[in-house]
């Protein structure tokens, strides 16, 4: 079973390097990334594709929303939940 720490580390690294292109950005786990204006809603699908390729999980369309994927904590929970189910 993949751990919270591993998922968190991989997701954070991907967001900082590939989306923000700023590995030094001090992203907080509960920081609203989309509603907080750091990344736009187009990036949701980019994260979903990364999750699918890295963790082998397809995030259902219904959960592919700004409301469900706004913070790192939410994304990690989503991945772990899907992995469990």
């Amino acid at each position, binding site marked *: 079973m993949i751990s919270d720490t591993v998922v968190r580390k991989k997701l954070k690294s991907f967001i900082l390097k590939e989306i923000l292109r700023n590995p030094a950005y*001090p992203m907080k786990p509960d920081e609203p990334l989309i509603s*907080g*204006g750091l990344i736009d*809603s*187009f990036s949701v699908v980019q994260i979903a594709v990364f999750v699918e390729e890295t963790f082998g999980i397809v995030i259902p*369309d219904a959960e*592919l929303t700004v409301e469900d994927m706004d913070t790192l904590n939410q994304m990690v929970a989503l991945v772990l939940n899907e992995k469990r189910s």
Partner: protein
Amino acid sequence: MGDGISSSSGIEKRDHKSTEFLSFVLIDDSGNVHRITRENLLGNALRCASDLQKTGIGPSQHVFLILPHSVELLYWLFGCFLAGVVPSIFSGPGRGEEGTWERIRNVSVQVNAILAVTVPEWASRLELELKDTGCQILQTGSKWPESDMNRGQYFQDMKIPGYVQITSGTTGRSKAVVLSGKAIDAYVYNMATELEIKPDDVVVNCLPLSHDFALFGAVLMPFSAKIPAVLISPFRWVRRPAILLRVIHDYGGTISWLPNSGFVHCARFALDREMEGIDLSRLRVMINGAEPVLHSSNQLFLDRFSPYGLREDALASGYGMAENTLAATFTSLGERSPVIFIHGQDLVTNGVVRILPETDPDAVPVVSCGKALRETKIQIVDQDGHPFPEGRVGEILIQSMSLFSKYAGDKALTKKALADGWFHTGDLGFILQNELFFAGRIKDLIIVGGRNISPMELEKAATEVPGIRPGQVVAFGVQDESIGTERVVLVCAVRNRELAGTKDDMARMIRQHVARKTGVAISDVKLVRGGWIERTVNGKLAIDRVFVCADFHCSLTVRREKITEGKDITFL
């Protein structure tokens, strides 16, 4: 894809003499598919028109349609036309919720809107915002009485009274672009002629209906030409861009379009498993428009989808804006948009076009926006308004049958924009062999994903954050080929003593506030001390914004940057 679209749901044959053939297929945010026949549209639009008339609204008065991507929106739009009133469509509140309501309020005063039609869940918020503006609220979904309008008044008699397109101005204030029915009719006819519309054509669109591309291209043009259009929820497309390709396959789509960034979004994020079985060979026109067209984005799209039957000659492009209803130029049908390679530095420094071989290290590709549409003239002029010959860069001017009448509530701006009988676009371009090439902007505007954003609107929002020096904020866009559009950068001067927490906290606070007010994501917030950014007495920036952009582009990661001649800037 879980969107409820079956592969056998192609558009049936149509009998154009009847009102029963399919006009629109609407795919909503949840993926539900709504099929709307002309008869169905007519019946519901008549009910909406009847409701509108009961409110006492008079001909040519102005109505806001603040509705989600839904069949209701189509019914009310056509209801407005049948009732002879002039609509404007607003998408509902997105992430910039606060800013959306504020903008609606400001525009309602600007254009003297009499009525706003909205869904019950947005009505109370809207009521609060519009309470002292004289604009009444009409909620959808109320129990409609039977229409007392003459059922014999069919669509063939419908005259579009006009439309007001709301777009971002360069001053931070929205522009309300007033289009006459005559201008819209001319545009719709010319576009259909230019596209050589045939009875078996099918338009597929995934832009919001508040966008001129969608409204005129995917609603009014197909309706007038009696061909069906599939209107995909833009939210759904953003989440799963392959839906556009799937719908083109399933419905036999022949004509579609996206902003340049949409080409990149589809190419990068339509997954192989979602593309299984898709055949795009029926697609004969795929237009790249609404923001600068990049050769790399077109190529990326072609490389990704040619294995699925996408034809190279389907790649088209155009140039246009709300003030011309939509497109003013369009590339030739059946030919890929021409690309030329020019000396980039010569163009920027001297305004001269020097053609280079593709392999030259200084060569920069520029994609043609095509030739002027029917009944349209394009002219390139110098700073004094004198026409330039081919190959010189100057302001793009337009004359056409589909030009706007005025900016509502702004006589001075109208006079300036329509001086000498031409529309002064504020864009830079050049002409070669009658083809128009876009070369930049004189006007202060950022375009992200086809959405016009006023830098002043962002600057104003950033200035509201405590600790920011009033008027000392600069917003600009930086072109990023990897996403096919501009990234937004803010440079803000701070009062050190009021700096709340660390500079990261401050930047976060600015970004969150700007997003809440405008819905715009900011790629980078840079803080500087006072004195680096100055405004003149009339509020204009004393520094040269274009120069800042150019320098900033290659220096986002460095600490020190030359910002004006002889001055260095230090980011905090």
